[in-house]
């Protein structure tokens, strides 16, 4: 074990943390929007919307993220129409391609989490809201959303951790986040295990922080389950 290399690799690898956090954060925000749309389509009862949402979830859950990243980064650029469109300055950048791929990927999994959460809402709750004279929107805002968020939170926390791990694939399309930097350091130093340990500890630290944050959010959102002081 070479401690010098290990210690000197810490600042280099830590410098990849902001990029990882950006990929996860932006991907997660965009993914949540996509997931909401997909869940809405899936539960809308409209045959076309249900079909499109199901197809989206099936394709993005059934294929590896690597295929999705390659398809967006290399595949779309094959078409002259894409290269001449207004979107090209975005789709040309590996940064935005990675975020788009991560968002589409997590959106498919998250929409299933949201769908499950909404389906577990007791029917009586919605009926009671109706009986109180609440409209569709008010029922959604006051009854469905608060219960669904509590239901979905634990699974959503797992999804964020999976997303941190998935963001390492951005290194394959040249982005130098934590894994990308580790991949570059290994042939420079020949210290595979040392660099692996440092990079691994950084990821474990990130994931631990996320798990704690989700646990805290859960605690905040379920005051009714806590013993009264």
């Amino acid at each position, binding site marked *: 074990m070479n401690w010098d290399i290990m210690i000197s690799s810490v600042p280099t690898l830590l410098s990849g943390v902001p990029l990882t956090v950006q990929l996860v954060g932006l991907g997660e925000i965009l993914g949540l929007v996509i997931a909401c749309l997909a869940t809405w389509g899936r539960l809308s009862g409209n045959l076309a919307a249900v079909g499109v949402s199901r197809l989206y979830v099936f394709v993005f859950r059934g294929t590896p993220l690597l295929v999705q990243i*390659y398809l967006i980064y290399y595949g779309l650029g094959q078409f002259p129409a894409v290269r001449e469109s207004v979107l090209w300055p975005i789709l040309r950048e590996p940064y935005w391609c990675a975020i788009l791929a991560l968002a589409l990927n997590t959106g498919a999994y998250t929409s299933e989490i949201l769908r499950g959460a909404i389906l577990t809402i007791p029917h009586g709750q919605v009926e009671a809201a109706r009986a109180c004279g609440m409209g569709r929107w008010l029922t959604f805002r006051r009854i469905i959303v608060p219960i669904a968020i509590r239901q979905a939170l634990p699974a959503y926390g797992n999804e964020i951790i999976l997303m941190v791990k998935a963001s390492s694939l951005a290194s394959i399309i040249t982005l130098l986040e934590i894994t990308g930097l580790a991949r570059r350091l290994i042939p420079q130093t020949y210290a595979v295990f040392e660099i692996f340990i440092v990079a691994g500890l950084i990821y474990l630290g990130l994931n631990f922080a996320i798990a704690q944050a989700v646990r805290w959010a859960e605690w905040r959102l379920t005051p009714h389950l806590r013993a009264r002081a």
Partner: protein
Amino acid sequence: MLEVLSFGPQGWGWQLLSGTLMTLAVAVSAFGTGVVFGAAGAAAKLSGNLPVRLVAEVYTTVIRGIPELLVIYLLFFGGNEAVTAVAQLFGYDGRVDLNAFTVGVLAVGLISGAYSTEVIRGAVRSVPPGQIEAARACGMGRFLTLRRILVPQTLRYALPGLGNVWQLTLKDTSLVSVTALAEIMRIAHTGAGSTRQYFVFYTTAAVLYLLLTSLSTAVFERAERRAMRGAVRV
């Protein structure tokens, strides 16, 4: 545009087919390795021995907490050294070189095993303790209890979870393409680069993975139905 996918001399059909078989070979071997690791990990987690339990706990926490790609890089770059070091412990002087297939199977198997550990542990725990006591009371020994009572029921409870692990494993094999092993992703990447038909090749790869995942979903559903044929339906 699609002639690049044909089975003719100009087409990539045969390569894509052999890539699909390679993906299946890696996935099946890695899943099998993972179930072995998972059984060992579950046994360790359920054992009364604290150090053994701790090792299993570290294994699942670390592997499930860091990116799969990092694990693959570790074995790809460090696997040969580690195996050589172990071989030297047993008095072998030469260098041991693992091929890309072995590295891929070991790496994906290690990841798959961490998830299998949790699935198998949960399945063992859901076998009612009364059944074990009954087996003891009938005079069955430890091994007989394991073989006749614990393993059959554990397998039944573990099947749905193992189905999920299989899907994860199948998709994780795509990452092995970074070691230049000629599976679906690698072939698609090479084909896309040499013909400039990126979209066609990556879409084909996506379709191949979709075929594999939907096919295996159907297989696991059948297996579950068969495993549950004796269970009471509520």
